């Protein structure tokens, strides 16, 4: 009898494919609400319009980078070069505006995306052709790109005066009270989230990360898909660089330093399995929002901003430990379910 009963919870937990993931997104949502509620309790201005706008703006670039990082991590790879790409792209875009002040704003974005796409393509090419772990490839890229950035910057900086005001507007304009920056990123997240669910090629990304050998046997063009993931990640980081310039209107050779760490943390906290195969774009974006909200909440509680990185690191560790615990629990209940099944 007990056998039959014990079968239920495990079966239910596993029954619906997306249930676990959706649970994760719910979890982050709840955590968000809790953080905001608690902070507001101590500091009433935390929920003011300007503070919320700040929350959304602050999370935007990380969420955008998180989209690309999610694609890469889902294929069982990692892209550590995103922070350097942000810095390089921001400076190159700014420098182009310095040299061509009359250039239409849209070209700023195109140039940013192109810069990122080049780095992403190189990362993807080396990873897929030589089969070298992407950890090492993109770690090297992190420093090489930053070095190239330093070469180009050569000690200078882009000042707000040389960034077209139209371009800067994007960084602070609000549409009916919602930051434009956030809207842009939300559109990207929505498109990417939709694509990851609805297209064959994007489902193949999940298949590759879930079981690379089986993906090969199933005839999936593994190399091409992984390359595309890196390309997208690089391109979005390039776009992120342009948005970085729009938001801050100034950049030197250190722009975006350390972002790779915060992005990986946000994505993993958002429920994207570091060993590939599962996770959603929405989860990653929510992870970025949660991380940023916690940071700002600490700030508004007069906790030194120096704690931000420690919090992100700790959250990352807690998230992977929690995922592990969850999967062990599910595995155990499945095991006893099968044992019970045998006994019937």
């Amino acid at each position, binding site marked *: 009898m007990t056998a039959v009963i014990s079968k239920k919870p495990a079966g239910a937990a596993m029954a619906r494919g997306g249930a676990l993931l959706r649970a994760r997104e719910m979890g982050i949502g709840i955590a968000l609400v809790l953080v905001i509620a608690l902070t507001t309790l101590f500091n009433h201005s935390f929920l003011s319009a300007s503070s919320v706008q700040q929350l959304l703006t602050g999370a935007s670039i990380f969420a955008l980078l998180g989209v690309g990082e999610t694609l890469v991590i889902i294929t069982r790879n990692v892209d550590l070069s995103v922070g350097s790409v942000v810095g390089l792209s921001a400076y190159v875009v700014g420098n182009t505006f310095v040299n061509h002040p009359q250039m239409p704003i849209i070209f700023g974005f195109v140039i940013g995306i192109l810069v990122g796409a080049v780095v992403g393509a190189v990362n993807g090419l080396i990873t897929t052709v030589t089969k070298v772990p992407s950890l090492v490839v993109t770690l090297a890229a992190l420093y090489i790109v930053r070095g190239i950035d330093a070469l180009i910057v050569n000690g200078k900086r882009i000042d707000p005066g040389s960034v077209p005001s139209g371009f800067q507007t994007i960084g602070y304009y609000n549409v009916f009270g919602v930051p434009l920056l956030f809207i842009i990123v939300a559109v990207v997240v929505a498109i990417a989230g939709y694509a990851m669910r609805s297209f064959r090629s994007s489902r193949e990304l999940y298949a590759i990360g879930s079981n690379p050998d089986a993906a090969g046997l199933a005839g999936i063009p593994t190399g091409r898909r992984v390359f595309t993931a890196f390309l997208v990640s690089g391109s979005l980081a390039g776009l992120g660089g342009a948005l970085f310039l729009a938001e801050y209107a100034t950049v030197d050779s250190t722009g975006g330093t350390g972002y790779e760490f915060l992005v990986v943390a946000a994505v993993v906290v958002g429920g994207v399995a570091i060993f590939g*195969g*599962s996770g959603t774009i929405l989860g990653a974006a929510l992870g970025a929002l949660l991380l940023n909200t916690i940071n700002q909440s600490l700030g508004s509680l007069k906790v030194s901003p120096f704690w931000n990185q420690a919090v992100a690191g700790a959250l990352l560790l807690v998230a992977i430990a929690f995922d592990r615990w969850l999967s062990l629990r599910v595995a155990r209940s499945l095991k006893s379910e099968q044992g019970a099944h045998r006994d019937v």
Partner: protein
Amino acid sequence: MEPLLVLDHATKSFGPVRALENGSVTLYPGEAHALLGENGAGKSTLVKILAGVHRQDSGDLTIAGELVNFSGPAASKAAGVSIIYQEPTLFPDLTVAENIFMGRQPLRGGRRIDRGAMNKAATAVFSRLGVDLDPERLAKGLSVADQQIVEIAKALSLDAKVLVMDEPTAALTQVEVQRLFDVMKTLRSQGAAVMFISHRLEEVFASCQRVTIMRDGNFVSTAPIEDLTIDDIIRSMVGRNLESLFPKTITEPGKVVLEVEHLTSAGVFTDISFQVRRGEIVALAGLVGAGRSEVARAIFGIDPYDSGVVTINGKVLHRNAPRESMAAGIALVPEDRRQQGLVMDLSIDQNVALASLSRLSKGGLISRSSERNLALDWAQRLQLRYGKMRNPVATLSGGNQQKVVLGKWLARNPSLLIIDEPTRGIDVGTKAEVHRILDGLVAEGMAILMISSELPEVLGMADRVLVIREGRLSANMSRAEADEDSVMRAATLQSTESIV
């Protein structure tokens, strides 16, 4: 009738190694065709050529009258060839339906995946198979049998012209095997050809019309099944008579070396009790996945267990402590030689020495000369055929690799040797040698617990036969009591019947 698939004199080498000398097979629409041969006969290589994973060096592959040249697995799939591998190749993080339709999910409105239609289609395939699986559950956590069913559903949904099944029944119960045969029948009636690879000859006789036999990478013969007997098939596969394979000296068993009492690990095995004495070989028989290897791993301490007692030479062992088990005199020659038995890139002598390093050290440093001498000594005793001791063990043939594993453990002079699938993937000549070694060890007073899926090996070598079925001990027979029928019955009988 025109053949559906013809592979004619295919060859395939890996570097200087010829894995396939002459791979030839012809499949007609509507037939179930068995491909038989020992491990190492070249079956897997042939299957991988059909799958588009490997490309033959020479020889033609014709499908439905057209010469084809597969550029990869996708091309093979597109040509209507569907493969079910021994190890299921599912994506654990995706749903069952998505596993079935990966890369060809039903679409709507252009390029969007139509999940509703996909799930419906999966359900339809399952109902054709007569199984009840939720298409929306994740593949993660499916039993091996259910995974195999998803693989079959995949092949079925492809409307494959040629279905190749590489030992699909290894992990299935009798009922599931029967269902699989029904599916084969359905496919055949629709004009497909099924190629069936199995080590269980009775299944071949129950389901196939023609048989192709391979040996040492070569085509031996193709014949209608009714023209053959089991003995004929075995003789063609092995290339000589069987008797000499199993030298057996009957000795009087001595005192109890290993005593296992009520060993239980939830969901894996339950209430296992038995003894092994000095000077006897006790065989642990049963189907793959019945829990035999898991019992061995628990005794040795690789895996934990929930309850029960393991005693060796009167000493009770702690759980999960391989070093303690080793010190107490247990040796384990594991099932998977390449992953568990050997470190393939280390040299022959380093592998032999790996379990005896502290004994070979002076002042904390490994003595290279004692290491070498130990390896040379065992190489000679076990008649190892090798090039240089410094070569990676990966350069040896399967049989000689197995001898290295044996040497590694015998060098510790254990009182109990647990050996899991002693001759899997070993050429016939070395097989007999391994058996002779085991026989000699028992004669010298060692206790051996042998796990084997090969019935002739169990019957030929064992003094006593234990059978495990679905995690429980279902029979304990003397050498005299055990025969093919009684062991298979104990291994496969459905639990509902045994309760009565």
